[in-house]
């Protein structure tokens, strides 16, 4: 028995090392001088802060970082709040057309943004109508609204709204909250009803405290998702000062001649840090939240 455990530890240890190797490698190389980076040396150098500061200042990583941080936090919090309330209505409230609305939300699980970029690009980037009257005369005309390429959009090219607003709703999050709410004993709500508490008090005093793991798990899922976005910002953001960090990485080694790989590796390491911190901070809630939603 003991013998078996040791073998398991050895295998898992080796696997952990192999999985971490590319990142450890990047971390080591980010500390080396341009000369050392090109050698096979795997000893840490002392150029880490120089590399980081070059990337931070010369390649505007401070700006990419701020942009990415802003959009990721807004998506993480906004999506979670909106989905919480949507799931609340689906589980705890009685209204007509519930099945249809649930279907309407859940079908979007199979509509990843990447698949929609062509249509989404026009909707987000085209200039809005000059006046409300002009917009309405287009909007109330079903032939034009539905059967011709879209005429007016939001005019959000290069604006943070373009990479935030389309992602504030999520079928995944609504679904996870719904699963979680359905497992909450009905007696809790009955007790709350007997006390004469309305939906708001029930949400605040009962539901919210019981949902910590699900919220924690969704914070991780949504932050990582928002932080790692690539294709959509690459397409919709043309102005470098509004760009996100993942696309900013490409600028670091866009011209393959004379790339300073030490700096590129420093850039990758910086890019990894925020989602890693969120994952480690919320690790327990994340694992519990996922385990719970899995237990259908």
């Amino acid at each position, binding site marked *: 028995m003991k013998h078996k455990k040791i073998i398991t530890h050895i295998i898992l240890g080796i696997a952990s090392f192999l*999985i971490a190797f590319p990142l450890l490698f990047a971390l080591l190389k980010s500390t080396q001088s341009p000369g050392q980076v090109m050698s096979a040396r795997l000893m840490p150098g002392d150029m880490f802060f120089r590399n980081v500061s070059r990337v931070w200042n010369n390649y505007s990583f401070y700006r990419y970082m701020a942009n990415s941080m802003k959009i990721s936090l807004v998506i993480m919090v906004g999506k979670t709040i909106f989905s919480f*309330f949507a799931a609340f209505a689906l*589980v705890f409230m009685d209204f007509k057309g519930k099945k249809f609305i649930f279907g309407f939300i859940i079908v979007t699980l199979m509509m990843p943004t990447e698949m929609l970029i062509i249509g989404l690009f026009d909707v987000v980037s085209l200039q809005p109508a000059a006046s409300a009257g002009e917009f309405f005369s287009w909007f109330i005309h079903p032939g034009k609204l539905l059967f011709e390429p879209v005429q007016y959009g939001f005019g959000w090219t290069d604006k943070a709204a373009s990479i935030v607003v389309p992602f*504030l*709703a999520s079928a995944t999050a609504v679904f996870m909250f719904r699963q979680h709410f359905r497992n909450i004993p009905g007696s809790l709500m009955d007790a709350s009803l007997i006390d004469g508490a309305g939906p708001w008090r029930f949400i605040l005093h009962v539901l919210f405290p019981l949902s910590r793991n699900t919220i924690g798990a969704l914070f991780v899922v949504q932050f990582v998702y928002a932080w790692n976005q690539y294709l959509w910002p690459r*397409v919709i953001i043309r102005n470098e000062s509004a760009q996100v960090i993942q696309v900013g990485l490409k600028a670091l080694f866009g011209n393959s001649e004379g790339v300073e790989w030490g700096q590129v590796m420093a850039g990758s390491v910086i890019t990894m840090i925020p989602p890693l911190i969120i*994952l480690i901070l919320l690790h327990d809630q994340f694992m519990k939240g996922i385990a719970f939603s899995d237990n259908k």
Partner: protein
Amino acid sequence: MNTHSQYRSRVLPWVFLSPTLFILLVFLYYPAWQSIILSLFRSNLFLGTRQFIGLENFRNLLTGPLAPAYKQVFLQTLVFSVLVIVPGLLISLALASMTNSLGKHGKIYRILLIWPYALSPAVAGTIFSFMFNPDTGAVNTFLKQFGGLQPRWLDNPVLAFVLVVCGCIWKNLGYNIVFYLASLQNIPKANYEAAELDGAGVLRKFFRITLPLVSPVTYFLIFTNLTYTVFEAFALVDLMTMGGPMGPPPLDKAGLTTFLIYKVFQDGFGGSSNMGFAAAQSVILMIMVAAVTFLQFKYGDKKVHYGGE
């Protein structure tokens, strides 16, 4: 499931639902519909011209001079998906069940194995680009010291393809292991203890207990990994190979690592900026995703063991 008594209100449910419904309608449903409409037009991103041409974009994809490239890309994406998903899921399940078998002593691996969940395809692509750069990359500098073998990693079609597969498997590991670990935690220990009393070995326990009991998660993961490899591998390809290099004939119609979503990007936002042509490809993707989802709902449920309540 519990049946809840429910709050009744005419307005409140719609207040709660409206932000989600509005965003889904305006930024998912309408763009999806717009992609279908655009696929019937000849539309140029930069010139802003739009001309109705019926099904010509689809005809061009399936027959004519542009069709062989699309067929090759289609095939490549299929091979790529299988090569990423099958080994990726096997490795993940093996590592997760080993970690699970250690119980409390395996806690450290729960962090060491799942951290790639936070890894972005762009970072994975960047690190791989440096490690395997044929001239300045670390792997070749290392190899130079031992024998001098210098493979042209990212310039060689086969090696580039394999590297993108490896990068994608690496990136997915964290996600897959998270879900397998979560699912393994829900398997009652008693199952394993009973099997041990019967003298079942490690492999027997794995195939008779673990594998059947995680099958719902496996189905879920096949589906999510499929969308991942088809759609999100974009960043990996964009940073490592930009869709290239060209394969040997007959695979010389398109870059060997150009996958369906990369082709949508190239045709819609690249040189020719033919948005209608790219929209037609999006529509084909939608039909495929719809078909896979349908199959998953129709057949997935029956063959899968869902743990008892």
